């Protein structure tokens, strides 16, 4: 299987997309990330990450309906694909398997 590359920030965004399944869009991801990371995140960075992952096939998009908010602009929702999910699974596996190999380390009393 080809190793799909995914950056750290992309991974965070993809996790958020998966967590907010079917309801994730720019602002909601932004809000969640700022809350989780407890630091300022620029929305443009999120947009770029989403576009790149869309090109890689990790996410799909669907367009929402028109509302009075957002200057009348429609939302673009992002949905994780099977490929995206498998990439996340693989990442998780690798991390946990390495993590589990950490012996019990004591740092003094």
């Amino acid at each position, binding site marked *: 299987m080809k190793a799909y590359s995914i950056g750290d920030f992309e991974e965070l965004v993809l996790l958020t997309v998966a967590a907010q399944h079917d309801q994730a*869009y*720019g*602002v909601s991801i*932004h809000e969640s990330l700022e809350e989780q990371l407890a630091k300022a995140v*620029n*929305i*443009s*960075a999120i*947009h*770029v990450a989403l*576009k790149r992952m869309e090109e890689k096939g990790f996410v799909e998009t669907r367009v929402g309906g028109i509302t009075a*908010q*957002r*200057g009348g*602009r*429609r*939302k*673009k929702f992002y949905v994780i694909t099977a490929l995206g999910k498998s990439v996340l699974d693989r990442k998780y596996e690798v991390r946990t398997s390495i993590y589990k190999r950490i012996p019990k380390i004591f740092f003094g009393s």
Partner: protein
Amino acid sequence: MTPRPPRFFLHFLRWYCREDYLEEMEGDLVELFEKRAGQNLSKARRQFGWDVVRGFRPRNLGFKLSLSNLTFMLRNHLTIALRVFRRDLSLTSINVAGLALSFAITLLILQYARFEFSYESTHPQASQIMRLTMDYLDGNTVVTQDCETYPPLGPTMKASLPEVEDFTRAYSLDRLLIKVGEETFYEDKGYAADPAFFDFFHYPLIEGSIAGAFLKPHEVILNESTARRFFGRTDIVGEVVQILHSEGELGLKVVGVMPDCPPNTHLPFNMLVSYPTMTASFGEKDENWNGNNTFTYIMLRPGTQEEAFQVQLEEFNKKLVAEEKIENERVIAQAMEDIHLYSHKTFEAEPNGDANSLFFLLLVALLVIVSAYVNYVNLATSRSVERAKEVGIRKVIGSTRSQLIGQFLFESFLVNVLAAIMAVGLIWLGREVFLELTDLGADFAILSDQVFWLMLVGFVLLGVFLSGLYPALVLSGFAPALVLKGKFSRSGKGLWLRKSLVIFQFAVTLILLTQSFIVYQQLNYMREKELGVNIDRTVVINGPALDSLQKRFVPFKQSLIQQPQIEGVAISGTVPGLPVSDMNTTTGIHLADELNPRNNNFYLTGIDSAYLSLMEIKLLAGENFQAGNLKGRNIIVNEEAIRQWGLQSPEEAIQKTVKFWGRKWQVVGVIQNYHHESGKSAHVPMIFYYFDEFSEYASIRISGGEVEESLALIEQTFESHFPFTPFSYFFLDQRYDEQFKADLQFQKLFNLLTGFAILIACLGLFALASFVIHQRTKEIGIRKIIGASTRHIMVLLTRDFIQTVMWAIVIGLPLTYWLAEFWLTRFPFRFELNAWVFVLPALAVVLLAILSLSVKTLKTALANPVDSLRAE
């Protein structure tokens, strides 16, 4: 109403964003904005703008930025430029080094000039301030111009001329002996000033307040460093300083402390005394129209017309003459901003600068930088043969002419930027030498000055366009078909231009070389001129400030004379080497039986009977003062004085009577003219009268042996006879030499500039020659095979250039002769211009040219023809 995001950024986003991203991006950004606006509207607007800016990245753009195209082109230009540089590494480095050197020199000279032009700029009112000065007249000719004026002049003028808003006087108080606590100090830079002084000159007080100050006598304001010198601190308002003067001690109350004077003012000082002190304690009178000892400044009302004021001033003069306040004199006004560079009157507060020298330096700096640009043009165009094929190919591929011009300008830009970077390094290395040469003081800002960098950028841009444009136009103008067929030959026109540029450079070199030679000769001539007075091994000491101590001079002299190492002691009102303005001046002294008297200015000072023999001043006729014999009525005059009186021989003058200072005087002796100031200035008419009070100077001639020892002895003797008086002294020969300080400094600066100009010209010639010769390598190989000798080839290669240099000499010589005559006119005593002064520099120029050529020609002439012909 819902808040709206900033329109400008919204439009910007819509402009740049690609169609398929816009809906999402705009929607998200606006939603985010709406959410944030609930908390802090202005912050939300800022964040929105920032988000829009952050979104401006290639991925989101709705159009293709041609940036990649541009960078590709620039990268290509850079590659080609670097290749060209590497191919002719030595030539390029010469080019860059020459430019860097001339950037550095020109920038430093400009900094110096800016400082000289910045005088009085710290005083915001400066443009409205005029200084009044006196012209002494003989009929309609001006005999002397004197900076100092009569005390009532300012008040009178303010009262009678509506244009004059206010006035202030600055009455010079020199050699004040000051006592603070138990310590005594000499203070040479003090002035008595009116309260308005602080409206004229911008010195906001650090301590105390100017309101209400200086209206009463016995008030003083010190500057910061003087306050520290006297008291060791600056919070001294209310303290008292004592002035020791002829009538005893005089207490002055400190009312303020001001900042130190900036270096760029014509009137620096350390302390100011309230003007009423002059009338209260220094014997000055408010209606004194006889002694002019004060500077007077006036402030004109805003909007006063210069011409109108001059007319008023003329009327004012007529009125003063009619009221018999002045005679054979007139008051003139000069702009305060012009004083430093354009005023050369007697009794100036400080030695002033000289606009002529400054413009001369600027001109030379300009020539240096033009010379370096010329080198660039020459080298770039002479390279044209090599670049022609490249241009042809580029054109065939589809390059437009403007693109080619861009390319060559880019190369020129690269060279100039490299040079600028090097120049900054050079300036950093040379700044200390420069500051010392120009006497600017160690804390003068060069690299930390903003204008410096602006000028540097300006030079680079100027360089790019001045030196880059012509080669760019020439090189980009080649017709591709001709060039690629190989039918390219050097155009005659370009050759002609290169030659004229070389002629220009060498003419400049010749002129600079001759001028610095002449400056050197003239300075030497003046410094080594027979002075007519012996200044060797003479210590001059200042007299005690208190009159009561003066009677102790006789025992002081007695005990000194007894010492074997002391040859003599004499008293005088001034000494040679000090400015003539240190003497008294009186106009209109003439023989008692003169029928049509002239109104010339005479310089008077007192001497005792030992003075003439101590100074070895030659008596031409008559005799020295005889102590005790009618001494109060006798005078000794110099040759210049009797010349002005129209007498033919010194003997004729003896026993003549003249009248001045309200009584009759008899001439008993005539001395030979000697250079009182230095060999620089013309002889002035001088009158010596008898004077044996030790209030000014005593000159002591010491015999050979240890100078230090004798000096210690003099000091010891002085202190035992004159307690409470600081011992201050100078050596006469040193004082004489100090007068040449400015000239020597100018000479050094000028020599340095000349050296660099010559270096740059030679570098240019060397580079040009090596290039031209490089192109003729094959020709020379063939010539050698046919049988040309090394000498023959050397001559062949050098002849062209030497011819050019000869043209430069033919053009440069008349110019330099004219310049030399012009420069020498300002010296009353000048050395004789002779042919050598011109021949030697001309020979030197030819020699320099041959030298810079020979390295390359010799190498080529000696080369084995096989090497040059083998490769095809």
